[in-house]
């Protein structure tokens, strides 16, 4: 049985959106027979995540939260993984849905044995319509952006490769962007559309390090 570790802190609006939008992926993975270890909220600490990566030895890690070039952060910005401790990701295919982590943290993780590290080389932008911040799954401004980023995990869960996952996410971002541009509601002003901005920015900074052919199948 394949195993997946999910980390999803939930202490501000950004992490709340990531937390909520991860739920469907967890269900989808369970339906595929993948054993999930779901570390959430204030349990997303360095001790818990490093400990569980070591004890469970998952094939996949799906880490949501805030990030810097050299670290992934959990509850209340506690540093959970850095370049040195990235050896805990050895043997995994990892998707970090957080800002900036790809180049340094991802590069070191792969040098330390991570099979493939998918992440963002720049900030991860989430547009939010103020009326929906308590109901992230219904937020029409965030939905296309979150769906495009969820596509990475959907592909990995379905046994597709890291490269296929990145490509599929970019394609979905393109499709959503085209839908906005050609919609009757579109004002013609790209500046005025935060969803379009976030789709293009996130798509541009999504990439992978390591073995592009890595998959769980």
């Amino acid at each position, binding site marked *: 049985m394949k195993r997946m570790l999910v980390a999803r802190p939930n202490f*501000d*609006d*950004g992490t709340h*959106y990531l937390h909520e939008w991860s739920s469907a992926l967890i269900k989808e993975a369970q339906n595929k027979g993948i054993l999930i270890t779901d570390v959430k909220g204030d349990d997303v600490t360095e001790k818990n995540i490093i400990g569980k990566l070591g004890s469970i030895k998952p094939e996949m890690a799906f880490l949501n939260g*805030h*990030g*810097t070039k050299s670290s992934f*952060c959990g509850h209340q*910005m506690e540093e959970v993984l850095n370049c040195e401790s990235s050896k805990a990701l050895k043997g995994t295919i990892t998707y970090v849905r*957080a*800002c*900036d982590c790809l180049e340094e943290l991802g590069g070191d993780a792969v040098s330390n044995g991570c099979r493939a590290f998918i992440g963002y080389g720049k*900030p*991860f*932008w*989430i*547009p*939010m*319509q*103020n*009326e929906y*911040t308590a109901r992230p799954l219904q937020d029409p*401004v965030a939905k296309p952006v979150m769906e495009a980023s969820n596509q990475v995990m959907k592909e990995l869960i379905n046994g597709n490769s890291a490269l296929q996952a990145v490509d599929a996410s*970019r*394609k979905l971002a*393109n499709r959503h*962007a*085209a839908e906005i*541009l050609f919609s009757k509601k579109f004002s013609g*002003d*790209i*500046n*005025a559309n*935060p969803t379009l*901005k*976030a789709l*293009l*920015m996130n798509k*541009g900074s999504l990439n992978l390090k390591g073995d592009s052919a890595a998959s769980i199948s």
Partner: protein
Amino acid sequence: MVYDEQIKKLVVMRLSTMPPNVSFSIGNYGKFSREDLIKEVKKNSATGEAIVSMEIDLLRQMPHLSAQLSE
């Protein structure tokens, strides 16, 4: 990187067309309304520079957008 005043003015004008009821979560920088974003750009903060950089990236993408979206 400190951006030219003309570029910052352009970015502020672009940001001012955003809907007033939409905010951006920008990772560990935090959550920003339209007015917050404009304020950050005007005061040259690290967040402001990230916002200017985003807008410049988008402007550079614009001529290639239709080709990109048909990929």
